[in-house]
C-alpha cells in the first residue's frame, strides 16, 4: 500500500513542478527584460494602476488596444474605487490611479508633499432614468429631482412634475427611488449636482454615500440600480450613461444652468466639459456647467500620476500609455458609453505629459 502511494506521488510532483516552471517562464517572457530603447517605439515594462470603477471599462478596452501599439508593455488596471486608487498611489503600490475627484484635503498629507499631476481622461453623463409606461418624454429640473430623491414628492402626478411637463398625462403611480447601496463616485457627483443646482432643496449633502430615505431601494453598482429601474413600474434612479444605455432605460431631460432641457448624450456631455472652468492643474467640475447645450449632470475622471518618477523607463511608459488614452484611446469612448474630452482640454492634458518624470527624484518641498 505504502509503495503504491509513493509510486504516483513522484510523477504527480514532477508534473506540478513542470507546470509551475512553464507558467513562470511564460509570464516572465512578457515583463520587461531589456534595456529601454532611446526611440519612442518599442517600450518595455509594466505599469500598474487602480482606482475608479467608472473608468474601468475604458481602461480595459484601452489596455487591450494599447497592446497592439506597444506589444512589449504590460498595463494592469485593478479598479477598486477612487479612494483605493488614491491610497494605492500614496503608498506607491501603483504607478497611476484613476480618481473621480481631486485629492480631498483630508488625504493631502498622505502624498508627503510630492506633486501629483492630474490627467483628465473620460467624461460621462449621469442619466436620470425612469420607468413609466406611456411617458416617453419627461422634463425635470434640479429642485424637483431633489424632492423626488428625498421622498418629498411621492407620486408621479405631483403638481411640481406636471408643471414641468405640460401636455403629458402623468399616472398616479407611486415613485420608487432607486439608488446605490455601495459607495460610488456616481453618487458623489449626482449629489454634488443636486447640492449646486437645487437652490437649497437638497439637504442630504454630497458624498459617495448618502443617507437616503428608508423607502428607497438600493442596488449594487450602476447595473443594480438599472435593474431596479427596469423591473419596477414607477421607479426613478440615477445611472451611468453606459449602463443605462446597455439596459435600454428611458432618460429624463434635465434642465441646465442656461434654462434649457438637455438629454444626456455624448455631445451634450462634451459640451458641458468644454464650458467648465479648468484650473491650472487641470481639475474642474463639469457639474452644472454653463452653456445652452451642456448636460448638467456630467462628471469626469482623472488619472493621477506623480510628477517625480524613480526611473526613466516608468516615466516613458506612463507618457506613452496616458498619451494613448488622450489620443487614439479617446475614439474608443463613445462606443463604450462615455464622452470624449473636448479638444481644448485634450490639448492641455497632452501638453502636460512632458512633465512626467521631469522633476528630480527629491520631493518638491513647496508646501510650507
Amino acid at each position, binding site marked *: 500500500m505504502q509503495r503504491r502511494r509513493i509510486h504516483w506521488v513522484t510523477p504527480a510532483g514532477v508534473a506540478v513542478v513542470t507546470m509551475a516552471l512553464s507558467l513562470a517562464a511564460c509570464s516572465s517572457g512578457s515583463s520587461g527584460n531589456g534595456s529601454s530603447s532611446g526611440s519612442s517605439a518599442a517600450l518595455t515594462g509594466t505599469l500598474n494602476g487602480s482606482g475608479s470603477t467608472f473608468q474601468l471599462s475604458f481602461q480595459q478596452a484601452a489596455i487591450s488596444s494599447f497592446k497592439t501599439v506597444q506589444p512589449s508593455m504590460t498595463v494592469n488596471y485593478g479598479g477598486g474605487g477612487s479612494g483605493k486608487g488614491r*491610497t494605492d498611489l500614496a503608498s506607491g503600490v501603483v504607478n497611476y490611479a484613476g480618481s473621480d475627484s481631486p485629492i480631498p484635503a483630508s488625504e493631502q498629507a498622505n502624498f508627503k508633499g510630492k506633486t501629483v499631476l492630474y490627467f483628465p481622461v473620460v467624461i460621462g453623463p449621469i442619466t436620470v432614468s425612469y420607468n413609466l409606461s406611456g411617458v416617453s418624454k419627461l422634463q425635470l429640473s434640479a429642485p424637483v429631482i431633489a424632492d423626488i430623491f428625498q421622498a418629498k414628492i411621492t407620486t408621479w402626478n405631483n403638481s411640481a412634475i406636471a408643471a414641468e411637463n405640460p401636455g403629458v398625462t402623468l399616472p398616479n403611480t407611486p415613485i420608487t427611488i432607486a439608488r446605490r447601496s455601495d459607495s460610488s463616485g456616481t453618487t458623489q457627483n449626482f449629489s454634488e449636482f443636486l447640492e449646486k443646482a437645487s437652490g437649497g432643496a437638497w439637504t442630504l449633502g454630497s458624498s459617495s454615500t448618502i443617507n437616503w430615505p428608508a423607502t428607497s431601494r438600493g442596488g*449594487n453598482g450602476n447595473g443594480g440600480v438599472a435593474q431596479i429601474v427596469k423591473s419596477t413600474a414607477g421607479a426613478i434612479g440615477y445611472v451611468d450613461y453606459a449602463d443605462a444605455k446597455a439596459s435600454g432605460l428611458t432618460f429624463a431631460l434635465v434642465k441646465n444652468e442656461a434654462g434649457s432641457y438637455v438629454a444626456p448624450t455624448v455631445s451634450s456631455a462634451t459640451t458641458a466639459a468644454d464650458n467648465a472652468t479648468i484650473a491650472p492643474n487641470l481639475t474642474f467640475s463639469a457639474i452644472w456647467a454653463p452653456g445652452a447645450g451642456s448636460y448638467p449632470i456630467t462628471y469626469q475622471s482623472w488619472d493621477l500620476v506623480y510628477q517625480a518618477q524613480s526611473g526613466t523607463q516608468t516615466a516613458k511608459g506612463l507618457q506613452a500609455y496616458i498619451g494613448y488614452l488622450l489620443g487614439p484611446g479617446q475614439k474608443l469612448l463613445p462606443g463604450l458609453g462615455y464622452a470624449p474630452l473636448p479638444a481644448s482640454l485634450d490639448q492641455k492634458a497632452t501638453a502636460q505629459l512632458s512633465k512626467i518624470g521631469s522633476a528630480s527624484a527629491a520631493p518638491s518641498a513647496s508646501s510650507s
Partner: protein
Amino acid sequence: MSTVTQAGQAVPASALAQRRSLGDRGFQVLALAAGLLVLVILVLIAVSTTQQASSWFTTEGLSGIFSTTWNPAAGQFGALAFIYGTAISAGIAIVMAVPVSVAIALLLTEVVPRQWARPIVYVIDLLAVVPSVVWGLWGILVFAPWIAGFYSSIGSAVKGVPVLGALFGPPTSGASFFTAGIILAFMITPIVTSLSREVIATVPAIDKEGAYALGATRLEMIRGAVWPHSKGGIVGAVLLGLGRAMGETIAAALVIGSSATITSHLFAPGDSMPAVIANEFGEASGVFRAALMGLGVLLFIITIIINMIARGIVQRSARRQRGA
C-alpha cells in the same frame, strides 16, 4: 537501564534517549511556534485595525460611536444602526435555523436508518459548499422579488394590529432584515446540523438503551438520555452558527437593503456591520474609512465575546456531565 538492540547491534541507552529527545524537542518547538504565530497574527490584526480606526474613536467619542445617525455626507458616523441590523438578521437566522438543524441532527442519528443517513448528510454538506456570493446573488435576483409579494400581503393584513403590525407591517421590501435572516439561516444550517450530529453521536449507547429498557418512548429517550449529554455541544454549535451569521458579508450586503435605520419592522430594509463595510469601503477616505475600520473592530470584539461565551457554556456542561 540496559541497552536496546536495533538490527542486532547494541546501542547505548543514553544515545538513543538523546536522539529521541532531539526529535521530540524539535517537534515541541515547531508546534509551539505554530501556536504562537497564530496568536501573534491575531494580536497584530487587532492592533492594526484599532490603530486605523483611532481617528474615528477620537473624533466621535463614546456617545458619537453609539449614536443612531450614520451620515457620511455630514460627517456623522454612529454605529448603532449597524449593530442593531447585525443582531436582528443574525437573530432571525438563529431562530429559523436552530430548530430545523437540531431536528435534522436528531433525525439523522436516532430515526433514519444508517444507510439513508449518509446521502442525506452529503446533501446537507453540499449546502455548505455553496459560495456566499452565490447565495447573495440568488437572494437579490430570485428570492427577494418573489418573497416581496408575501411581505406586502402579510404587511397589509396585519396593518394596525398592535405587536404584529409593528413587526410585520409596512414598509415592506424584498431586500430587508427578514430576507437577510432567511438567507443566513440557509447558510448556517449545514454547520449547526453537522456539529450537532457529531455531538449527539457521542452519547453512549448504554444511556440510550437504558432509557428504552425503562420503557421510555423515543421522545422521552431523547429528552432524558441524549439531551443532557449533548446540550452543551449543541449550544456551542448554535453559537458558532451565530458567529458565522454575524460575520457573513457578501450575502448580507446584497440582500439586506442598505438602509442604515433602526426600526422594528422586520420587512423593512436595514444594514449590518459587515455589509456596510463591504459596500462603502471603496470610496471611503479619512474619518469615513476609520469609521468602517472601527465597525470591523467592534464586530471583532462582539464575535470574540460570543465565542468566549460559547466555550464557557460548553466547558461548564462538560464538567457537569463528567460529574454526573
